[in-house]
């Protein structure tokens, strides 16, 4: 039975949580409120929390401008490619580091962890030169390839594979499974939640990535949503309603992805931390 003494603390915790949630929600609500009003209202001297006139005009204009669907497509393609390929690279690398024996394994793992400590900004110049030499500037491959090696993802998967009982692998080996089949039929299925969780994290990261696409993309047709938003600003001048409409449209797919897979992400995170028995 819950003690009555705990009740005030519960109330305090609930109030604090509600206040923090509002603080987080306020910019989003403001963006929605701005996007749903006519352009002239956004620069009105009189402040109103809600639009005086409700309209979808800003959304219509953003679509009519023509580039948004293309940027959405680019973002979706890039984020999906980055997610799928990063998962493929990270899972196989993590499995090798966790379960296989080969010369130089510890050094290679240490090296991949050192890469974890290097800020991406310090790699921009060499990466740009490399992409240039490979003639991949302003291509999907140029945007995707440098994003594929994710030491954090490798580390999380390695930790998870380390915790899978070795008897599963031995049983599969006795059953005649090759290392690839052990991964495919045993380790991957038991890691379902963590795969989902990491996929969402990588997808959101790739969708929101600004810096590398900004460096490597030169044409409007290849732009992703975050880059496109800067173009919107240029094209329409300071048109806040349209800018907010574009931002909301750009953020919607990733928010939807999170909402749809929220349970799996939470389960995966719990599994990764070992909190779930």
């Amino acid at each position, binding site marked *: 039975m819950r003690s009555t003494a705990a009740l005030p603390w519960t109330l305090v915790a609930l109030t604090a949580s509600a206040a923090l949630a509002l603080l987080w929600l306020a910019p989003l609500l403001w963006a929605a409120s701005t996007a749903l009003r006519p352009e002239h209202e956004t620069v009105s001297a009189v402040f109103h929390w809600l639009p005086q006139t409700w309209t979808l005009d800003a959304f219509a204009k953003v679509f009519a401008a023509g580039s948004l669907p293309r940027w959405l497509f680019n973002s979706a393609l890039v984020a999906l490619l980055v997610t799928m390929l990063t998962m493929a690279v990270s899972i196989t690398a993590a499995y090798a580091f966790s379960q296989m024996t080969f010369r130089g394994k510890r050094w290679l793992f240490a090296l991949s962890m050192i890469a974890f400590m290097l800020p991406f900004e310090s790699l921009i110049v060499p990466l740009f030169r490399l992409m240039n030499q490979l003639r991949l500037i302003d291509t999907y491959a140029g945007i995707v390839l440098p994003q594929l090696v994710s030491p954090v993802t490798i580390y999380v998967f390695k930790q998870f594979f380390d915790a899978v009982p070795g*008897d599963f692998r031995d*049983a599969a*080996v006795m059953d005649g499974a090759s290392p690839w089949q052990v991964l495919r039929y*045993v380790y991957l299925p038991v890691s379902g939640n963590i795969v989902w969780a990491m996929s969402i994290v990588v997808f959101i990261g790739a969708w929101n990535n600004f810096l590398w696409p900004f460096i490597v993309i030169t044409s409007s047709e290849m732009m992703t949503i975050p880059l496109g938003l800067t173009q919107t600003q240029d094209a329409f001048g300071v048109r806040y309603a349209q800018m907010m409409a574009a931002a909301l449209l750009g953020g919607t797919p990733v928010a939807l992805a999170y909402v749809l897979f929220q349970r799996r992400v939470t389960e995966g995170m719990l599994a990764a931390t070992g909190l779930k028995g």
Partner: protein
Amino acid sequence: MASVRLRGIGKSFGDQEVIKGIDLDIADGEFVVLVGPSGCGKTTLLRIIAGLESPTKGEIDIDGRRSNDIAAARRGMAMVFQSYALYPHMTVAENMGFALKLAGVAKEEIAASVSRAADILQIGHLLDRRPKALSGGQRQRVAIGRAIVRRPGVFLFDEPLSNLDAALRAQTRVEIARLHKELKTTTIYVTHDQAEAMTLGEKIVVLNAGIIEQAGTPLDLYARPANRFVAGFLGSPRMNFLDAQLESIAESDTLLVSVRLTDGTLVHVAANTNRAESGTSVTLGVRPEQFTVMPRDPAPGAIAAKVAVIEHLGDSMIVYAQVEGMPDLMAVKCGADAPVPPVGSGISLAFRPTHAHLFDPHGVAFAPD
């Protein structure tokens, strides 16, 4: 079915040598139990035979063929793990048929094999369940079923009963014995439980610190242990050991030797002590069921003791008695209704000379008469 032959098998992990040159022959269809205390190397040896570990030295022959470099899956062996290692995301049927699926066997054939194995183990009603929906005993049967489906030449069991409760363990032990009788497949079974080893094995191999202390039939090892380790490891309660000194060979034709215990009692043991001189420190070993409890009797050969603890087991009784000068209590197994004096009473312990064992200072047994 297959035979297995090990010659000079050794295994080191870094500087630590866990298996030290093991030679062992396992005949076609034989049920061999590898038994020993924790850390003696029995599971490592099983994994070497399975192909899950490579030996640092030595040769493994399976059916007369050198198999050191043959992959685990191609050795024709199936293993039942201590943890069962059932794949949690697969149903029982999928677990059992997984090896056949990997081998590219047709679905109908897999279903038939799984069904046959399920019939043998009476788990047909569990085929659609996942492992988490099974009890410990059911998981154990499924793990055995998974091994049966492969129709291996050799079954390998790695402490398969250690996660079961006592009643289920006894029941499963009987089922494993029945299964071996039915399938006649060569079986190598690892356990630390001497009762399991004694009841299941046609041959027992006692391992200690990476070497074979003794191998033989259960009764042979029990009756004629080669050394003090084997004598103490097999049997529950374990054999009683008493420090003593060799006095003399009393009658050369019967090889009856006289031994003086530390409390001064002179007892006789049937043993061939030709390699020892009188005055040598020895250890006398007497199994709990070989002692007879008598009222305190000053007769020669009777060991004076005092009742310390009595354990009633229902069908029998264990009397723990203190012998003067001995650090350990002597265990004596009696019938449930044996007339044993109460705790604190003086008693005498007697045994027949042919029912005792004598060990030299290195723990090696003097051959019995």
